[in-house]
């Protein structure tokens, strides 16, 4: 048991617990209204939105998995950097329109928008269900980060229920403050969490190179074939197309995830989103530094040290960063770092569970089950669903093999991408027919899942072959291309049938947002 690290960890956890409950009083609103509980009253300014979106996008799983991938696979794992760069021009151009129309019509979710825009409850249901299903394994994976750092401090080494107890306590705390405070809780906690993350990453990127003799030593410790992408052979685009499509496809998928939409819609105006698109890349820089810690773990050779053998055996390369932290930083600082990763899981898990319960309540419960429910009933339902969602994630991570959560999260990225034609294209034109979009969505879902299946759900990279030429690429993007093609071809056909058109409750002016400097 590492008492130094554990003491600091528990103190910081206690602090954010208090903060989570106090948050209910912050910018006080009627928490019996769904937009107050689930979107913090749409009153978040530039700074809090920056922390909230940052806490949302750069999750605990990201902080464990990205360096782990770089540690194991080398340069290919670095795609996380171009991905989190090119996402911001997209955020800047597209999401202010989403904010404007959502503000005008009190939309809480992307599926709300699809319902209003296309007047087709089946298409909205498809978007809602995709969002919920893609989010669930993501929440489970947030627990992985927590599980790894708790294990790294030597808690519950005996296994059994004692090993899971700290995880269950952390999640009970999370569930309680999300229930009472709604989105306000993760918004406030995100500020603490990100401060801790910035401190940790900056410390690692200064201390470790000093210990091993500079950055040139870090890079020269890496096997040459892992330092760069492999140059493709004849008749294939090899790792080049894999890297580019992973970056592009992940960027598209990112802001379709319900939790991103929740954070964006809680902004107080469209300008906050445009400004954040320019400032959020600061997190991408941090993520890039963190990816490099994968190489630092190689350079320090932590995977070969006997004291970390158990950790690597249990958590594989996901243990690379915790081991590096224990090896290079003093115990109390390791406590800060582990608290950063642990709290770093709770913030996105809270936002994700709120987003999933908003989707369920608005687009399934109110639409299909209880059409006459009052705003109070709606909010109470959302709060309860957020508990169910988190409990499901907890059961998932404790009782099922970790591999399932990772594979489902991989599929989730492919699935959520299939809502792009309905949601994003819908912001610009009503030309695509809702039923054509529904067929395209189903085809994309099927083909994308099949593509991942051909690799035994081990990889999202599909080797697309055209006339003897291979272009390995992100299955989400290939499936999306098919989805688009189907929607485009079928739309003019369906559009001839007036009854398929649906009513559009939005007008062009709804998408307009005023701009200030």
């Amino acid at each position: 048991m590492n008492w130094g690290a554990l003491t600091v960890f528990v103190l910081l956890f206690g602090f954010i617990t208090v903060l989570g409950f106090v948050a209910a009083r912050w910018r006080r609103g009627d928490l019996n209204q769904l937009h107050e509980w689930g979107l913090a009253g749409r009153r978040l300014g530039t700074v809090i939105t920056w922390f909230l979106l940052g806490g949302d996008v750069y999750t605990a799983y990201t902080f464990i998995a990205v360096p782990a991938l770089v540690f194991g696979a080398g340069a290919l794992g670095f795609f996380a950097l171009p991905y989190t760069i090119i996402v911001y021009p997209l955020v800047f151009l597209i999401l202010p329109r989403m904010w404007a129309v959502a503000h005008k019509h009190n939309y809480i979710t992307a599926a709300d928008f699809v319902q209003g825009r296309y007047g087709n409850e089946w298409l909205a249901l498809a978007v809602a269900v995709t969002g919920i299903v893609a989010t669930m394994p993501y929440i489970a994976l947030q627990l992985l980060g927590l599980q790894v750092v708790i294990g790294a401090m030597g808690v519950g080494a005996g296994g059994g229920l004692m090993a899971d107890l700290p995880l269950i306590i952390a999640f009970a705390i999370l569930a309680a403050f999300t229930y009472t405070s709604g989105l306000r809780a993760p918004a406030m906690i995100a500020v603490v969490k990100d401060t801790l993350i910035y401190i940790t990453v900056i410390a690692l990127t200064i201390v470790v190179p000093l210990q091993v003799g500079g950055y040139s030593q870090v890079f020269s410790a890496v096997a040459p074939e892992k330092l760069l992408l492999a140059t493709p052979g004849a008749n294939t685009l090899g790792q080049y197309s894999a890297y580019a499509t992973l970056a592009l496809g992940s960027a598209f998928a990112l802001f379709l995830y319900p939790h991103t939409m929740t954070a964006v819609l809680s902004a107080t105006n469209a300008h906050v989103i445009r400004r954040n698109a320019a400032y959020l890349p600061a997190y991408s820089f941090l993520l890039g530094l963190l990816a490099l810690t994968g190489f630092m773990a190689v350079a320090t050779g932590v995977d070969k040290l006997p004291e970390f053998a158990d950790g690597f055996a249990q958590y594989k390369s996901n243990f690379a960063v915790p081991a590096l932290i224990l090896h290079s930083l003093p115990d109390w600082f390791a406590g800060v770092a582990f608290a950063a990763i642990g709290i770093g899981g709770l913030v996105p898990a809270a936002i994700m569970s709120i987003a999933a319960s908003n989707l369920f309540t608005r687009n399934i419960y109110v639409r299909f089950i209880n059409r006459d429910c009052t705003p109070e009933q709606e909010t109470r339902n959302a709060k309860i669903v957020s508990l169910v969602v988190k409990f499901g994630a907890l059961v998932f991570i404790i009782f099922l093999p970790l591999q399932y959560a990772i594979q489902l999260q991989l599929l989730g990225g492919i699935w959520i991408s299939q809502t792009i034609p309905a949601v994003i294209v819908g912001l610009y034109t009503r030309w695509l027919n809702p039923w054509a979009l529904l067929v395209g969505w189903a085809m994309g879902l099927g083909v994308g899942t099949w593509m991942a299946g051909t690799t035994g759900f081990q990889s999202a990279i599909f080797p697309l072959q055209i006339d003897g030429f291979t272009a390995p690429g992100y299955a989400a993007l290939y499936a999306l291309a098919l989805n688009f093609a189907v929607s485009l071809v079928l739309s003019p056909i369906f559009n001839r049938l007036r009854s398929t058109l649906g009513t559009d409750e939005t007008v062009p002016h709804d998408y307009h947002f005023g701009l200030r400097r």
Partner: protein
Amino acid sequence: MAPDTRSGPRWPNLLLVIPFVALLWVPSYNSIEPTIWGIPFFYWYQFLWVILTSLLILAVQRLTADPVAGDEGAGGRP
């Protein structure tokens, strides 16, 4: 595309294509040399684009902004 009533120019948005070309054309930067402080080109080039993209977005934001319109409802700056 919905008709737009705002008065700011829209052409600067095209500048945002640049990061896509710079980062998705992978062979253009998949090399060790030139290194900076021992960091291979592949890595520092992509870090550099974090900053450049941020600056580009700031520039486009300024160039497309409508100096008159307010979007904060009551209490918005004139």
